[in-house]
Protein backbone atom coordinates (compact mmCIF):
# COMPACT_ATOMS: atom_id res chain seq x y z
CA UNK A 1 0.00 0.00 0.00
CA UNK A 2 1.22 3.47 -0.80
CA UNK A 3 0.04 5.20 2.33
CA UNK A 4 -1.65 4.16 5.56
CA UNK A 5 -3.02 6.66 8.05
CA UNK A 6 -3.17 5.49 11.68
CA UNK A 7 -5.22 7.21 14.38
CA UNK A 8 -3.21 7.80 17.55
CA UNK A 9 -4.60 8.53 21.01
CA UNK A 10 -2.69 10.22 23.80
CA UNK A 11 -2.88 8.81 27.29
CA UNK A 12 -1.24 10.52 30.29
CA UNK A 13 2.42 11.06 29.32
CA UNK A 14 2.52 8.78 26.29
CA UNK A 15 0.15 7.12 23.81
CA UNK A 16 -2.39 4.38 24.42
CA UNK A 17 -1.05 0.86 24.01
CA UNK A 18 -3.69 0.32 21.33
CA UNK A 19 -2.08 3.09 19.25
CA UNK A 20 1.18 1.11 19.18
CA UNK A 21 -0.77 -1.96 18.11
CA UNK A 22 -2.26 -0.02 15.20
CA UNK A 23 1.19 1.24 14.11
CA UNK A 24 2.59 -2.30 14.22
CA UNK A 25 -0.36 -3.64 12.21
CA UNK A 26 0.07 -0.93 9.55
CA UNK A 27 3.70 -1.89 9.13
CA UNK A 28 2.64 -5.40 8.16
CA UNK A 29 1.03 -3.84 5.07
CA UNK A 30 3.55 -1.25 4.01
CA UNK A 31 7.03 0.09 4.77
CA UNK A 32 7.33 2.22 7.91
CA UNK A 33 7.92 5.45 6.01
CA UNK A 34 4.52 5.06 4.31
CA UNK A 35 2.68 5.03 7.62
CA UNK A 36 1.48 8.43 8.82
CA UNK A 37 -0.01 9.03 12.25
CA UNK A 38 -2.83 11.43 12.99
CA UNK A 39 -3.49 12.69 16.51
CA UNK A 40 -5.69 15.35 18.06
CA UNK A 41 -4.16 17.99 20.33
CA UNK A 42 -1.37 15.66 21.46
CA UNK A 43 1.98 16.94 22.73
CA UNK A 44 5.31 16.37 20.96
CA UNK A 45 6.46 14.46 24.07
CA UNK A 46 3.51 12.07 23.85
CA UNK A 47 3.93 11.57 20.11
CA UNK A 48 7.67 10.88 20.46
CA UNK A 49 6.72 7.47 21.88
CA UNK A 50 5.42 6.44 18.45
CA UNK A 51 9.08 6.40 17.30
CA UNK A 52 9.76 3.37 19.50
CA UNK A 53 7.39 1.44 17.24
CA UNK A 54 8.88 2.73 14.01
CA UNK A 55 6.52 5.58 13.16
CA UNK A 56 8.35 8.68 11.97
CA UNK A 57 5.61 10.99 10.69
CA UNK A 58 2.66 12.37 12.60
CA UNK A 59 0.14 15.05 11.74
CA UNK A 60 -1.10 16.62 14.97
CA UNK A 61 -4.48 18.31 14.60
CA UNK A 62 -4.60 21.49 16.66
CA UNK A 63 -7.97 22.92 17.55
CA UNK A 64 -9.28 24.55 20.71
CA UNK A 65 -12.74 23.36 19.70
CA UNK A 66 -11.52 19.80 20.24
CA UNK A 67 -10.34 20.37 23.81
CA UNK A 68 -13.61 18.68 24.75
CA UNK A 69 -13.61 15.66 22.45
CA UNK A 70 -16.39 15.76 19.87
CA UNK A 71 -16.95 12.85 17.47
CA UNK A 72 -18.59 15.04 14.81
CA UNK A 73 -15.74 17.56 14.85
CA UNK A 74 -13.05 14.88 15.10
CA UNK A 75 -14.51 13.22 11.99
CA UNK A 76 -14.32 16.54 10.12
CA UNK A 77 -10.73 17.09 11.22
CA UNK A 78 -9.55 13.57 10.34
CA UNK A 79 -11.35 13.91 7.01
CA UNK A 80 -9.29 16.98 6.22
CA UNK A 81 -6.07 15.12 7.02
CA UNK A 82 -7.18 12.25 4.79
CA UNK A 83 -7.63 14.76 1.97
CA UNK A 84 -4.03 15.80 2.43
CA UNK A 85 -2.37 12.41 3.00
CA UNK A 86 -4.57 10.48 0.50
CA UNK A 87 -4.14 7.10 2.25
CA UNK A 88 -5.25 3.75 0.82
CA UNK A 89 -6.17 2.62 4.30
CA UNK A 90 -7.11 4.33 7.57
CA UNK A 91 -6.67 2.33 10.78
CA UNK A 92 -8.23 2.95 14.17
CA UNK A 93 -8.12 0.90 17.33
CA UNK A 94 -11.45 -0.77 18.09
CA UNK A 95 -11.78 0.91 21.46
CA UNK A 96 -14.75 3.07 22.49
CA UNK A 97 -13.46 6.11 20.61
CA UNK A 98 -12.32 4.27 17.50
CA UNK A 99 -15.53 2.29 17.13
CA UNK A 100 -17.53 5.52 17.20
CA UNK A 101 -15.24 7.69 15.07
CA UNK A 102 -14.13 5.26 12.35
CA UNK A 103 -17.58 4.67 10.78
CA UNK A 104 -18.17 8.43 10.67
CA UNK A 105 -14.88 8.94 8.84
CA UNK A 106 -15.56 6.00 6.50
CA UNK A 107 -18.99 7.38 5.60
CA UNK A 108 -17.55 10.83 4.89
CA UNK A 109 -15.08 9.45 2.37
CA UNK A 110 -17.44 6.74 1.01
CA UNK A 111 -15.01 4.03 2.10
CA UNK A 112 -15.67 0.37 2.85
CA UNK A 113 -15.51 -0.16 6.60
CA UNK A 114 -15.04 -3.26 8.72
CA UNK A 115 -14.86 -3.16 12.52
CA UNK A 116 -13.13 -5.36 15.04
CA UNK A 117 -10.58 -6.96 12.70
CA UNK A 118 -8.36 -9.66 14.13
CA UNK A 119 -6.28 -10.40 11.03
CA UNK A 120 -5.82 -9.37 7.42
CA UNK A 121 -4.26 -10.50 4.17
CA UNK A 122 -3.10 -8.19 1.42
CA UNK A 123 -1.81 -9.55 -1.87
CA UNK A 124 -0.88 -6.21 -3.38
CA UNK A 125 -4.34 -5.64 -4.79
CA UNK A 126 -7.09 -6.99 -2.56
CA UNK A 127 -7.48 -6.52 1.17
CA UNK A 128 -9.25 -9.36 2.95
CA UNK A 129 -9.86 -9.03 6.67
CA UNK A 130 -11.08 -11.40 9.35
CA UNK A 131 -13.54 -10.35 12.00
CA UNK A 132 -15.29 -12.39 14.67
CA UNK A 133 -19.09 -12.53 14.31
CA UNK A 134 -21.74 -13.82 16.69
CA UNK A 135 -19.38 -12.77 19.51
CA UNK A 136 -16.69 -15.08 18.17
CA UNK A 137 -18.80 -18.17 17.50
CA UNK A 138 -17.66 -17.77 13.87
CA UNK A 139 -15.17 -15.69 11.89
CA UNK A 140 -16.11 -13.77 8.75
CA UNK A 141 -13.60 -13.13 5.97
CA UNK A 142 -14.49 -9.92 4.22
CA UNK A 143 -13.22 -8.13 1.15
CA UNK A 144 -13.25 -4.35 1.12
CA UNK A 145 -14.38 -3.17 -2.30
CA UNK A 146 -13.65 0.59 -2.34
CA UNK A 147 -10.39 2.40 -3.17
CA UNK A 148 -9.81 3.89 0.27
CA UNK A 149 -10.64 1.54 3.13
CA UNK A 150 -11.21 1.98 6.86
CA UNK A 151 -10.73 -0.60 9.62
CA UNK A 152 -10.87 -0.79 13.37
CA UNK A 153 -8.61 -3.39 14.95
CA UNK A 154 -9.60 -5.41 17.99
CA UNK A 155 -7.44 -4.34 20.95
CA UNK A 156 -4.95 -6.88 22.37
CA UNK A 157 -4.85 -8.96 19.19
CA UNK A 158 -2.15 -7.22 17.13
CA UNK A 159 0.85 -7.29 19.44
CA UNK A 160 2.78 -4.02 19.44
CA UNK A 161 6.41 -4.64 18.52
CA UNK A 162 9.14 -2.23 19.60
CA UNK A 163 12.05 -1.63 17.30
CA UNK A 164 15.03 0.69 16.89
CA UNK A 165 13.62 4.01 17.92
CA UNK A 166 13.28 6.62 15.21
CA UNK A 167 12.72 10.29 15.80
CA UNK A 168 9.19 11.44 15.15
CA UNK A 169 8.58 14.41 12.93
CA UNK A 170 5.40 16.10 14.13
CA UNK A 171 3.55 18.48 11.83
CA UNK A 172 1.05 20.61 13.70
CA UNK A 173 -2.02 21.17 11.59
CA UNK A 174 -4.45 23.94 12.37
CA UNK A 175 -7.75 22.65 11.05
CA UNK A 176 -10.50 25.16 10.41
CA UNK A 177 -13.46 23.67 12.25
CA UNK A 178 -16.90 25.15 12.62
CA UNK A 179 -18.27 25.52 16.15
CA UNK A 180 -21.73 24.78 14.75
CA UNK A 181 -20.55 21.24 13.94
CA UNK A 182 -19.78 20.57 17.60
CA UNK A 183 -23.14 18.89 17.98
CA UNK A 184 -21.97 16.36 20.51
CA UNK A 185 -19.06 16.46 22.94
CA UNK A 186 -17.64 14.86 26.06
CA UNK A 187 -18.55 17.20 28.91
CA UNK A 188 -16.85 15.20 31.66
CA UNK A 189 -14.84 12.06 32.23
CA UNK A 190 -14.78 10.33 35.59
CA UNK A 191 -11.79 8.00 35.69
CA UNK A 192 -12.07 4.68 37.47
CA UNK A 193 -9.05 5.26 39.64
CA UNK A 194 -7.00 2.11 39.94
CA UNK A 195 -9.73 0.02 38.34
CA UNK A 196 -8.74 -1.70 35.14
CA UNK A 197 -11.34 -2.40 32.46
CA UNK A 198 -11.68 -5.95 31.14
CA UNK A 199 -11.12 -4.60 27.60
CA UNK A 200 -7.71 -3.25 28.54
CA UNK A 201 -6.49 -5.98 30.81
CA UNK A 202 -3.84 -8.59 30.06
CA UNK A 203 -5.27 -10.82 32.75
CA UNK A 204 -8.94 -11.13 33.72
CA UNK A 205 -10.34 -12.97 36.74
CA UNK A 206 -14.09 -13.56 36.37
CA UNK A 207 -16.67 -14.89 38.75
CA UNK A 208 -19.85 -16.83 38.00
CA UNK A 209 -22.82 -18.10 39.93
CA UNK A 210 -20.45 -20.31 41.93
CA UNK A 211 -19.29 -17.25 43.87
CA UNK A 212 -22.70 -17.39 45.63
CA UNK A 213 -22.99 -13.70 46.50
CA UNK A 214 -21.38 -10.27 46.09
CA UNK A 215 -19.86 -10.53 49.57
CA UNK A 216 -17.52 -13.25 48.30
CA UNK A 217 -16.15 -11.27 45.35
CA UNK A 218 -13.09 -10.29 47.38
CA UNK A 219 -11.70 -13.72 46.45
CA UNK A 220 -11.85 -12.70 42.77
CA UNK A 221 -10.62 -9.17 43.45
CA UNK A 222 -7.64 -10.35 45.52
CA UNK A 223 -6.37 -12.59 42.74
CA UNK A 224 -7.02 -9.94 40.06
CA UNK A 225 -5.16 -7.31 42.02
CA UNK A 226 -2.24 -9.64 42.72
CA UNK A 227 -1.93 -10.32 38.98
CA UNK A 228 -2.46 -6.69 37.97
CA UNK A 229 -5.57 -7.79 36.12
CA UNK A 230 -9.20 -6.78 35.80
CA UNK A 231 -12.30 -8.20 37.46
CA UNK A 232 -14.93 -9.73 35.18
CA UNK A 233 -18.29 -11.40 35.71
CA UNK A 234 -20.68 -13.80 34.05
CA UNK A 235 -24.13 -12.67 32.95
CA UNK A 236 -25.77 -14.53 35.87
CA UNK A 237 -23.72 -12.51 38.33
CA UNK A 238 -24.54 -9.19 36.62
CA UNK A 239 -28.24 -10.02 36.23
CA UNK A 240 -28.37 -10.87 39.94
CA UNK A 241 -27.10 -7.35 40.62
CA UNK A 242 -23.92 -8.58 42.31
CA UNK A 243 -21.59 -6.79 39.89
CA UNK A 244 -21.91 -3.81 37.48
CA UNK A 245 -22.79 -4.28 33.77
CA UNK A 246 -19.36 -3.00 32.72
CA UNK A 247 -17.73 -6.16 34.06
CA UNK A 248 -19.90 -8.60 32.10
CA UNK A 249 -18.00 -10.84 29.71
CA UNK A 250 -19.95 -12.63 27.00
CA UNK A 251 -22.24 -12.17 24.04
CA UNK A 252 -24.37 -9.46 25.65
CA UNK A 253 -21.38 -8.11 27.55
CA UNK A 254 -17.82 -7.50 26.49
CA UNK A 255 -15.84 -9.70 24.14
CA UNK A 256 -12.34 -9.97 25.53
CA UNK A 257 -8.96 -11.29 24.36
CA UNK A 258 -6.61 -11.22 27.36
CA UNK A 259 -3.42 -13.25 27.65
CA UNK A 260 -4.90 -15.12 30.61
CA UNK A 261 -8.57 -15.55 31.51
CA UNK A 262 -9.40 -17.15 34.85
CA UNK A 263 -13.01 -18.35 35.10
CA UNK A 264 -14.08 -19.01 38.68
CA UNK A 265 -17.37 -20.79 39.33
CA UNK A 266 -18.47 -20.18 35.73
CA UNK A 267 -20.08 -23.22 34.13
CA UNK A 268 -19.58 -21.87 30.59
CA UNK A 269 -22.86 -20.98 28.91
CA UNK A 270 -22.41 -20.64 25.14
CA UNK A 271 -22.83 -16.84 25.39
CA UNK A 272 -20.01 -16.61 27.93
CA UNK A 273 -17.68 -18.92 26.01
CA UNK A 274 -18.22 -16.79 22.89
CA UNK A 275 -17.09 -13.68 24.74
CA UNK A 276 -13.81 -15.06 26.06
CA UNK A 277 -12.85 -17.79 23.60
CA UNK A 278 -10.16 -15.66 21.95
CA UNK A 279 -8.20 -15.44 25.21
CA UNK A 280 -4.69 -16.79 24.75
CA UNK A 281 -4.83 -18.99 27.87
CA UNK A 282 -7.85 -20.00 29.92
CA UNK A 283 -7.79 -21.35 33.47
CA UNK A 284 -11.12 -22.67 34.78
CA UNK A 285 -12.02 -23.43 38.37
CA UNK A 286 -15.30 -25.27 38.92
CA UNK A 287 -16.56 -27.97 41.24
CA UNK A 288 -18.64 -29.64 38.52
CA UNK A 289 -16.29 -31.73 36.42
CA UNK A 290 -18.93 -31.88 33.66
CA UNK A 291 -19.09 -28.06 33.32
CA UNK A 292 -18.78 -26.99 29.63
CA UNK A 293 -16.00 -24.55 30.57
CA UNK A 294 -13.63 -27.52 31.02
CA UNK A 295 -13.94 -28.34 27.31
CA UNK A 296 -12.73 -24.83 26.48
CA UNK A 297 -9.84 -24.37 28.88
CA UNK A 298 -6.08 -24.85 28.82
CA UNK A 299 -5.93 -25.59 32.54
CA UNK A 300 -8.77 -26.69 34.77
CA UNK A 301 -8.97 -27.19 38.50
CA UNK A 302 -11.91 -29.35 39.52
CA UNK A 303 -12.80 -28.11 42.97
CA UNK A 304 -14.68 -25.65 45.11
CA UNK A 305 -13.54 -22.12 44.34
CA UNK A 306 -13.82 -21.23 48.03
CA UNK A 307 -10.96 -23.57 48.83
CA UNK A 308 -9.08 -23.32 45.50
CA UNK A 309 -8.91 -19.54 45.06
CA UNK A 310 -7.21 -18.70 48.40
CA UNK A 311 -4.63 -21.44 47.78
CA UNK A 312 -4.07 -20.34 44.20
CA UNK A 313 -3.63 -16.73 45.29
CA UNK A 314 -1.18 -17.76 48.05
CA UNK A 315 0.90 -19.89 45.70
CA UNK A 316 1.08 -17.22 43.00
CA UNK A 317 2.14 -14.72 45.66
CA UNK A 318 4.87 -17.10 46.84
CA UNK A 319 6.02 -17.62 43.27
CA UNK A 320 6.42 -13.90 42.53
Amino acid at each position, binding site marked *: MNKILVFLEANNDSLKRTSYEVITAAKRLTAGENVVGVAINASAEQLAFAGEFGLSNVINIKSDLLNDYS*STLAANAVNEVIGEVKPDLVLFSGN*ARGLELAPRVATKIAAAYVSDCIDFEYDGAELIVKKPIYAGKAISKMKLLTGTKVLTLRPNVFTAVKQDATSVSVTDKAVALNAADKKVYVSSLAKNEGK*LDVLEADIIVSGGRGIKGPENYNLIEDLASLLGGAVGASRAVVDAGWRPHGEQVGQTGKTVSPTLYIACGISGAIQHLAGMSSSKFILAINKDKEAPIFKMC*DYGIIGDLFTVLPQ*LTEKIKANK
Partner: protein
Amino acid sequence: MNILVCISRVPDTASRIIVASGGKTIDNTGIKFVVNPYDEIAIEEGLRLREKNGGTVTCVVLGTEVSKDILRTALAMGVDKAVIIKTADDNYDSYFTAENLANYAKTLNPDIILLGKQSVDYDSLQMPSTLGELLNMPSVSVVTKLTIEGTNVTAEREVEGGKEVISSTLPCIISAQKGLNDPRYPKLPDIMKAKSKPIEEVAAIEVAARVEIVGLEMPSKKRIGKLVTDSEVDIAEIVKLLHEEAKVI
Protein backbone atom coordinates in the same frame (compact mmCIF):
# COMPACT_ATOMS: atom_id res chain seq x y z
CA MET B 1 -41.83 13.61 20.40
CA ASN B 2 -41.22 11.81 17.12
CA ILE B 3 -39.24 8.69 18.05
CA LEU B 4 -37.72 6.22 15.60
CA VAL B 5 -36.36 2.88 16.80
CA CYS B 6 -34.31 0.76 14.37
CA ILE B 7 -34.19 -2.94 15.17
CA SER B 8 -32.65 -6.05 13.70
CA ARG B 9 -33.45 -9.74 13.68
CA VAL B 10 -30.73 -12.01 15.02
CA PRO B 11 -30.24 -15.59 16.21
CA ASP B 12 -31.06 -16.04 19.91
CA THR B 13 -27.77 -15.77 21.82
CA ALA B 14 -28.14 -19.38 23.01
CA SER B 15 -27.82 -20.53 19.37
CA ARG B 16 -24.99 -22.70 18.20
CA ILE B 17 -23.62 -21.20 14.99
CA ILE B 18 -22.72 -23.53 12.10
CA VAL B 19 -21.50 -22.49 8.65
CA ALA B 20 -23.95 -23.45 5.89
CA SER B 21 -22.90 -25.27 2.75
CA GLY B 22 -21.62 -22.63 0.36
CA GLY B 23 -19.50 -21.31 3.20
CA LYS B 24 -20.72 -17.72 3.20
CA THR B 25 -23.74 -17.83 5.48
CA ILE B 26 -24.74 -19.58 8.66
CA ASP B 27 -27.02 -22.59 8.76
CA ASN B 28 -30.40 -21.31 9.96
CA THR B 29 -31.75 -24.77 10.69
CA GLY B 30 -33.22 -24.91 14.17
CA ILE B 31 -32.18 -21.34 14.98
CA LYS B 32 -34.69 -19.18 16.80
CA PHE B 33 -34.59 -15.60 15.55
CA VAL B 34 -35.38 -12.81 17.98
CA VAL B 35 -35.24 -9.05 18.39
CA ASN B 36 -31.59 -8.12 18.87
CA PRO B 37 -31.25 -7.94 22.70
CA TYR B 38 -29.82 -4.40 22.67
CA ASP B 39 -32.66 -3.28 20.39
CA GLU B 40 -35.17 -4.33 23.06
CA ILE B 41 -33.48 -1.79 25.32
CA ALA B 42 -33.81 0.82 22.54
CA ILE B 43 -37.53 0.03 22.14
CA GLU B 44 -38.04 0.32 25.90
CA GLU B 45 -36.26 3.68 25.98
CA GLY B 46 -38.46 4.89 23.13
CA LEU B 47 -41.61 3.84 24.99
CA ARG B 48 -40.43 5.59 28.17
CA LEU B 49 -39.67 8.79 26.25
CA ARG B 50 -43.18 8.68 24.79
CA GLU B 51 -44.70 8.05 28.23
CA LYS B 52 -42.87 11.13 29.53
CA ASN B 53 -43.13 13.50 26.57
CA GLY B 54 -46.01 12.20 24.48
CA GLY B 55 -45.57 11.52 20.76
CA THR B 56 -45.17 8.48 18.55
CA VAL B 57 -42.78 5.55 18.52
CA THR B 58 -42.12 4.13 15.06
CA CYS B 59 -40.19 0.88 14.82
CA VAL B 60 -38.38 -0.04 11.60
CA VAL B 61 -36.62 -3.19 10.46
CA LEU B 62 -34.78 -3.93 7.23
CA GLY B 63 -35.11 -7.43 5.85
CA THR B 64 -37.20 -9.99 4.05
CA GLU B 65 -40.81 -10.92 4.85
CA VAL B 66 -39.74 -13.11 7.82
CA SER B 67 -38.49 -10.03 9.69
CA LYS B 68 -42.08 -9.03 10.34
CA ASP B 69 -42.10 -11.39 13.34
CA ILE B 70 -39.87 -9.09 15.37
CA LEU B 71 -42.02 -6.09 14.46
CA ARG B 72 -44.91 -8.01 16.06
CA THR B 73 -42.79 -8.24 19.23
CA ALA B 74 -42.16 -4.48 19.09
CA LEU B 75 -45.90 -3.84 18.59
CA ALA B 76 -46.68 -6.08 21.56
CA MET B 77 -44.23 -4.07 23.66
CA GLY B 78 -46.18 -0.97 22.70
CA VAL B 79 -44.72 0.84 19.68
CA ASP B 80 -47.30 2.84 17.70
CA LYS B 81 -46.21 2.05 14.19
CA ALA B 82 -44.21 -0.75 12.56
CA VAL B 83 -42.39 -0.49 9.25
CA ILE B 84 -40.46 -3.02 7.21
CA ILE B 85 -38.01 -1.90 4.56
CA LYS B 86 -38.25 -4.95 2.37
CA THR B 87 -35.24 -6.55 0.75
CA ALA B 88 -35.28 -9.25 -1.90
CA ASP B 89 -32.84 -11.46 0.05
CA ASP B 90 -30.32 -11.38 2.90
CA ASN B 91 -27.41 -10.57 0.64
CA TYR B 92 -26.45 -6.99 1.53
CA ASP B 93 -23.83 -5.22 3.62
CA SER B 94 -24.07 -2.86 6.58
CA TYR B 95 -23.80 0.20 4.38
CA PHE B 96 -26.87 -0.92 2.43
CA THR B 97 -28.73 -1.12 5.75
CA ALA B 98 -27.51 2.32 6.81
CA GLU B 99 -28.47 4.01 3.52
CA ASN B 100 -31.91 2.45 3.65
CA LEU B 101 -32.54 3.34 7.29
CA ALA B 102 -31.35 6.90 6.62
CA ASN B 103 -33.56 7.10 3.57
CA TYR B 104 -36.58 6.09 5.63
CA ALA B 105 -35.62 8.35 8.57
CA LYS B 106 -35.60 11.35 6.22
CA THR B 107 -39.28 10.80 5.47
CA LEU B 108 -40.09 10.69 9.18
CA ASN B 109 -37.89 13.52 10.40
CA PRO B 110 -37.53 12.09 13.94
CA ASP B 111 -36.45 14.01 17.06
CA ILE B 112 -34.52 11.00 18.21
CA ILE B 113 -33.34 7.74 16.65
CA LEU B 114 -32.72 4.86 19.04
CA LEU B 115 -30.85 1.64 18.24
CA GLY B 116 -29.13 -1.15 20.14
CA LYS B 117 -25.41 -0.56 20.55
CA GLN B 118 -24.69 -3.45 18.21
CA SER B 119 -26.44 -6.27 16.45
CA VAL B 120 -25.34 -9.54 18.03
CA ASP B 121 -24.74 -11.10 14.63
CA TYR B 122 -22.08 -8.98 12.92
CA ASP B 123 -21.21 -7.03 16.11
CA SER B 124 -20.07 -3.98 14.16
CA LEU B 125 -21.27 -1.06 16.34
CA GLN B 126 -21.22 1.13 13.27
CA MET B 127 -24.86 1.99 12.64
CA PRO B 128 -25.27 5.04 14.95
CA SER B 129 -22.20 6.78 13.52
CA THR B 130 -22.94 5.88 9.91
CA LEU B 131 -26.54 7.07 10.24
CA GLY B 132 -25.24 10.20 11.97
CA GLU B 133 -23.12 11.07 8.95
CA LEU B 134 -25.82 10.23 6.42
CA LEU B 135 -28.42 12.29 8.29
CA ASN B 136 -26.04 15.00 9.50
CA MET B 137 -27.03 14.24 13.09
CA PRO B 138 -24.97 13.87 16.27
CA SER B 139 -24.79 10.38 17.73
CA VAL B 140 -23.81 8.87 21.05
CA SER B 141 -22.92 5.19 21.11
CA VAL B 142 -23.15 2.65 23.96
CA VAL B 143 -25.30 4.76 26.30
CA THR B 144 -26.14 3.55 29.83
CA LYS B 145 -28.04 6.64 31.03
CA LEU B 146 -30.04 9.14 29.01
CA THR B 147 -31.58 12.42 30.17
CA ILE B 148 -33.50 14.71 27.83
CA GLU B 149 -34.66 18.14 28.96
CA GLY B 150 -36.19 20.27 26.24
CA THR B 151 -33.78 19.75 23.38
CA ASN B 152 -30.76 19.15 25.63
CA VAL B 153 -29.44 15.61 25.68
CA THR B 154 -27.13 14.25 28.38
CA ALA B 155 -25.85 10.71 27.97
CA GLU B 156 -23.50 8.59 30.02
CA ARG B 157 -21.38 5.72 28.83
CA GLU B 158 -18.56 3.55 30.02
CA VAL B 159 -15.28 3.86 28.19
CA GLU B 160 -11.97 2.12 28.87
CA GLY B 161 -10.97 3.25 32.33
CA GLY B 162 -13.87 5.54 33.15
CA LYS B 163 -17.27 6.98 32.56
CA GLU B 164 -17.95 9.74 30.03
CA VAL B 165 -20.77 12.24 30.21
CA ILE B 166 -21.72 13.46 26.75
CA SER B 167 -23.74 16.54 25.87
CA SER B 168 -25.73 16.89 22.71
CA THR B 169 -28.98 18.31 21.39
CA LEU B 170 -32.02 16.92 19.61
CA PRO B 171 -32.37 15.69 16.95
CA CYS B 172 -29.88 13.03 17.98
CA ILE B 173 -29.04 9.33 17.58
CA ILE B 174 -28.56 7.18 20.68
CA SER B 175 -27.38 3.57 20.81
CA ALA B 176 -28.44 1.59 23.87
CA GLN B 177 -26.19 -0.45 26.12
CA LYS B 178 -27.27 -2.86 28.83
CA GLY B 179 -28.00 -0.89 32.00
CA LEU B 180 -29.97 1.88 30.26
CA ASN B 181 -33.23 0.20 31.31
CA ASP B 182 -34.82 -3.19 31.81
CA PRO B 183 -37.03 -3.89 28.79
CA ARG B 184 -40.63 -4.85 29.57
CA TYR B 185 -42.02 -8.25 28.70
CA PRO B 186 -45.03 -7.99 26.39
CA LYS B 187 -48.27 -9.14 28.04
CA LEU B 188 -50.28 -11.94 26.46
CA PRO B 189 -53.27 -9.76 25.43
CA ASP B 190 -50.85 -7.31 23.81
CA ILE B 191 -49.12 -10.15 21.96
CA MET B 192 -52.52 -11.26 20.65
CA LYS B 193 -53.50 -7.72 19.63
CA ALA B 194 -50.15 -7.17 17.89
CA LYS B 195 -50.88 -10.06 15.52
CA SER B 196 -53.54 -8.09 13.68
CA LYS B 197 -51.91 -4.65 13.70
CA PRO B 198 -50.84 -3.19 10.34
CA ILE B 199 -47.21 -3.25 9.21
CA GLU B 200 -46.22 -0.63 6.66
CA GLU B 201 -44.04 -1.88 3.82
CA VAL B 202 -41.40 0.17 2.05
CA ALA B 203 -39.24 -1.19 -0.77
CA ALA B 204 -35.49 -1.08 -0.16
CA ILE B 205 -33.46 1.15 -2.46
CA GLU B 206 -30.47 -0.23 -4.33
CA VAL B 207 -27.09 0.59 -2.80
CA ALA B 208 -23.75 -0.55 -4.23
CA ALA B 209 -21.92 -3.02 -1.95
CA ARG B 210 -18.79 -1.81 -0.20
CA VAL B 211 -17.94 -5.02 1.63
CA GLU B 212 -18.26 -8.59 0.40
CA ILE B 213 -18.23 -11.72 2.53
CA VAL B 214 -15.65 -14.08 1.08
CA GLY B 215 -16.28 -16.90 3.52
CA LEU B 216 -17.04 -17.91 7.09
CA GLU B 217 -14.84 -20.08 9.29
CA MET B 218 -15.17 -21.60 12.71
CA PRO B 219 -12.65 -20.47 15.33
CA SER B 220 -10.05 -23.18 15.62
CA LYS B 221 -8.15 -22.45 18.79
CA LYS B 222 -6.72 -25.65 20.20
CA ARG B 223 -6.78 -25.77 23.97
CA ILE B 224 -4.30 -27.65 26.15
CA GLY B 225 -7.15 -29.07 28.24
CA LYS B 226 -5.16 -30.17 31.29
CA LEU B 227 -7.56 -30.92 34.16
CA VAL B 228 -6.41 -31.47 37.74
CA THR B 229 -7.92 -31.94 41.20
CA ASP B 230 -8.02 -29.34 43.95
CA SER B 231 -5.18 -30.95 45.93
CA GLU B 232 -2.40 -28.66 47.08
CA VAL B 233 0.10 -30.43 44.83
CA ASP B 234 -2.15 -30.03 41.78
CA ILE B 235 -2.77 -26.34 42.40
CA ALA B 236 0.99 -25.83 42.75
CA GLU B 237 1.42 -27.66 39.44
CA ILE B 238 -1.02 -25.30 37.71
CA VAL B 239 0.81 -22.25 39.07
CA LYS B 240 4.06 -23.74 37.76
CA LEU B 241 2.51 -24.34 34.32
CA LEU B 242 1.12 -20.80 34.15
CA HIS B 243 4.59 -19.57 34.97
CA GLU B 244 6.75 -21.86 32.85
CA GLU B 245 4.56 -23.21 30.04
CA ALA B 246 2.12 -20.39 29.37
CA LYS B 247 4.53 -17.75 30.72
CA VAL B 248 1.62 -15.55 31.68
CA ILE B 249 2.39 -14.93 35.36
